């Protein structure tokens, strides 16, 4: 998709998104566009609104105003931003695989059960088909041996790779990552980044919040620098990391280097 001249279809689009928690205005009009195959990285200081922006995309947070569309389909919202149609939200969420900082695997289920839970019990995929797909994905993230293990008995890196496989197992249109390596011991970061890089290489659409600047520069097709709920600067990674324009971004890059 990336190499063709024709523009790829739009996977995720966010327009003029605002979000307040009570009186706290967290997002002050941010927009984002990810076409099929794009890898959009969101960087920025802690508290700048990165997670909130990502969570608004699948309505884990209710936007205060703005417009969101997934795969060209507008999310029906009330004037106050709250979703109008629960069924639509649920259906759109099924097309967005979210990976959290804290893995959030279901601890009462084995790894394999975690993977097939939504395909079998929500999407009504035949069980043997879901299991076959899950095994393939587990092999891919290097956890073929672990399908019967309970999450609590695995390392953080293994849990996060299983969480990525779980999201992939519902065959989403796009993946959303919220600092997938921030909760990991340094020696476990590499194995997770390697899996994410593999997804980028195969042309998966992703929106990735990350503190791994080197990684963002390598895999992203577009980078957004968020500061205080506004997009301070955005562009191709080489431009943003190589020749930052704004003073704040220069400061930020210096501080995380």
């Amino acid at each position: 998709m990336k190499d063709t001249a024709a523009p790829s279809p739009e996977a995720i689009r966010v327009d003029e998104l605002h979000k307040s928690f009570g009186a706290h205005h967290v997002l002050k009009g941010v927009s984002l566009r990810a076409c099929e195959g794009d890898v959009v990285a969101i960087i920025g200081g802690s508290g700048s609104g990165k997670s909130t922006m990502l969570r608004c995309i699948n309505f884990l947070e209710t936007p205060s105003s703005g417009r969101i569309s997934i795969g060209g389909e507008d999310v029906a919202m009330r004037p106050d931003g709250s979703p109008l149609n629960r069924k639509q939200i649920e259906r759109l969420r099924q097309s967005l695989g979210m990976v959290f900082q804290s893995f959030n695997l279901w601890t009462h289920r084995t790894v394999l059960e975690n993977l097939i839970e939504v395909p079998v019990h929500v999407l009504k995929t035949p069980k043997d088909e879901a299991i076959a797909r899950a095994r393939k994905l587990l092999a891919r993230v290097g956890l073929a041996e672990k399908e019967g293990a309970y999450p609590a008995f695995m390392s953080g890196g293994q849990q996060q790779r299983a969480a990525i496989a779980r999201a992939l197992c519902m065959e989403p249109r796009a993946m959303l990552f919220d600092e997938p390596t921030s909760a990991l011991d340094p020696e476990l970061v590499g194995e997770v980044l390697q899996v994410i890089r593999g997804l980028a290489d195969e042309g998966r659409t992703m929106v990735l919040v990350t503190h791994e600047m080197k990684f963002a520069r390598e895999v992203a097709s577009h980078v957004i620098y968020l500061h205080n709920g506004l997009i301070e600067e955005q562009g191709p990674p080489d431009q943003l990391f190589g020749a930052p324009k704004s003073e704040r971004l220069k400061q930020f890059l210096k501080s995380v280097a």
Partner: protein
Amino acid sequence: MQGFWAPRRIVMAAIAAGIVVWCVLALNWTWLADPKYQGLILQGIWTTIWILVVTMVLGMLLAIPLGLAQAAGPWWLAMPAAGFCGLIRGTPLLLQLWLLYYGLGSLFPSIPWIRQSDLWPILRQAWPYAVLALSLSVAGYEGEVMRGAFKGVPHGQLEAAKAMGMPRFTIFRRIWLPQALRRVLPTLGGETVLQMKATPLVATITVIDIYAVSSRIRQDTFVVYEPLLLLAVVYMAIAGVIVLLFRWLENRVPQKTA
């Protein structure tokens, strides 16, 4: 094996065996040979067991909405639920049992449509009031426990389910409830044993459980002590089964002890 056959253990086992032999030989067990009492004893044990099982199941079925209402419900559900749990936990079970039996039990006959209903032959017996009171008691205690259990399930796991587009009820049924139940399992075993020990109260409203049977035997035969020993053995055996059952259940889903 060395440890198992330690002298201390051998002495203990010898003492225990001695007590058993003495009990069998020196005490009066002739009444146990009476087929009438054998039948009564079996019926009594059966009554105790079914009352225990039915009230635990009904109580837990009530405890789930009671806990959920307190953990996540709006105030107009949470408040009455908390009030109910407080009321049940704050008053003696014997009082609740008598209030229901003598209260409802004397109210119902005065209402014509209840007397004429098909349920009347059941409602005029004692056991429905025993089952109701003991179930409400479980509901009150376990409702409180379930509240904590629901709250204790990490929010991130529910959020992950939500983020994957699980409908709300599916999240409850597949993720939230099973984990809450898993959390109460270790306490629930102990509470089931406590509930077993509360069942003799039903004898006070004429339900013939194993306790009532042993009282009856004591009155009939003037054998004072031995029926009580039998009672102790029966309750200990049931408690043993409960403990083993819950241990087995707990082992089915390993939980990391952090």
